[in-house]
């Protein structure tokens, strides 16, 4: 049969020569291979002391961003929920009342915004769909829980606090958003 790859090997069972029967050259070359591995630099990262840096494209737990004045960017347009292939995002929209201008950037906001972290596949399509630069994936790891219900993250966990902003500059510099 015609071979499509160059990985085909013709098997032969010709009798071994005397040198091959001694096995010693084979053993010796095997030992040379292991010696090479002894002298190799080890790639182990000793975790608690040394923490591995995530790649800039790493997609971890989501964050709902606020703008510079501390107002929520999200306008509950629902594009992220539509884009989500795992249907992990749900939200309820609400109208901004008078006196809430310092809380929400535009007239409409999400009164509840929930992501089911068990459904989420961390594809990042919500981030791409968002026209308001409100949702981003970060380099944080979703922690384990004992109850399924605890994996449904509400606004309390998703929205960043005003004092403790989440850095998403790495995500913005991956080149994906630069084109817009």
């Amino acid at each position, binding site marked *: 049969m015609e071979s499509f790859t160059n990985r085909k090997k013709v098997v032969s069972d010709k009798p071994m020569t005397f040198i091959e029967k001694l096995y010693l050259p084979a053993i010796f070359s095997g*030992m040379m*291979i292991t010696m090479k*591995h002894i002298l190799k630099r080890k790639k182990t990262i*000793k975790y608690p002391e040394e923490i591995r840096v995530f790649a800039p494209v790493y997609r971890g737990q989501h964050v709902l961003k606020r703008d510079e004045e501390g107002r929520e960017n999200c306008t509950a347009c629902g594009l992220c929920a539509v884009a989500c292939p795992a249907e992990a995002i749900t939200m309820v929209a609400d109208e901004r009342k008078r006196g809430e201008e310092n809380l929400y950037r535009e007239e409409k906001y999400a009164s509840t915004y929930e992501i089911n972290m068990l459904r989420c596949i961390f594809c990042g399509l919500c981030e791409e769909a968002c026209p308001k630069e409100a949702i981003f994936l970060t380099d944080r790891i979703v922690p384990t829980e004992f109850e399924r219900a605890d994996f449904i993250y509400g606004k309390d966990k998703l929205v960043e606090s005003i004092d403790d902003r989440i850095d998403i500059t790495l995500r913005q510099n991956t080149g994906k958003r630069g084109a817009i």
Partner: protein
Amino acid sequence: MDTALLIEKFSLVIIVFLISLGIAAYSTYFERKLAAWIQDRIGPDRAGPFGLLQPIADGVKMFMKEDFIPKNSDKWLFIIGPGISMFTALITSTIIPWGPPIEIFGRQISLQIADFNIGVLFIFGVVSIGVYGIMIGGWASNNKYSLFGAIRASSQMISYELAMGISLITIILLTGSLSLTDIVKSQHGMNWNIFYQPVCFLIFFICSLAETNRAPFDLAECESELVGGYHTEYSSMKLGLFLFAEYVSMFISSALMAILFFGGYNFPGMDYFDGNTLAILGVLAFFTKTFLFIFVFMWIRWTIPRFRFDQLMHLGWKTLIPAAIINMLITAIVIAFNKGWF
């Protein structure tokens, strides 16, 4: 016998005992390190600097474990098994000449606990008792895996002792003495036996791998087939003794190979030194060679897969023994020819 001799021999016994155990303990550490390096890992590095306290941690762990004796086992034999293993592993160190005689307080002290004139035969006797530890341990456990391990160990021991003995006869022919002191002395400077008997060394080396139950000849404790082999039923320090005995006997057989083939404490340029300097350098040279062999033992273990049982028997009976006999005959003929017996 005067008191001074008694004291010097006694302290030598204690020192050799401690050194053997210490080296065995640290070879467990080094074995784990080397295994890790070969597999591109780092190995134990948590206990102390570079993990150097790991053997102590292991020892403490072994002691803390429950010492369990199975209900249907032969209790007396079960207890004595690991003891025999350890005893035979340690007893061989009595006749090893660790270095040239040293001079303390105006007394010549030989760095050998007992200079038997039949040292080589003594080694053989002790090594063949060594298998009893494994055999008795495996039998007493009353477990089929243990028994299989014990049977394998004993048949392997018998097969490889023959080739080992014949290759040793070659060395005895070359030296004309059964005493290890004489064998070492005859290899003064760089006049090592390895240059005369490379084939003999190879056979001896393979046989010592088999005798110490090291990979690729560790069929007696073959994890993939026999769970743990002869020590399946053992726990706590009894298991510890079995495992430890392996390392002690590895150290001793490395020392033996250094003596028989690599000149023991002899090193090139040793004529420029004398007295205690020579003794210390000699001991250093001896230990360097021994450690080198221990390293090679481990290196081989983590390189080569285990033999199948029939391959083991095939190698032992059909390859090593004929090769050893032919080598011995050729050596004998050459020696006889040189002495003008023809």
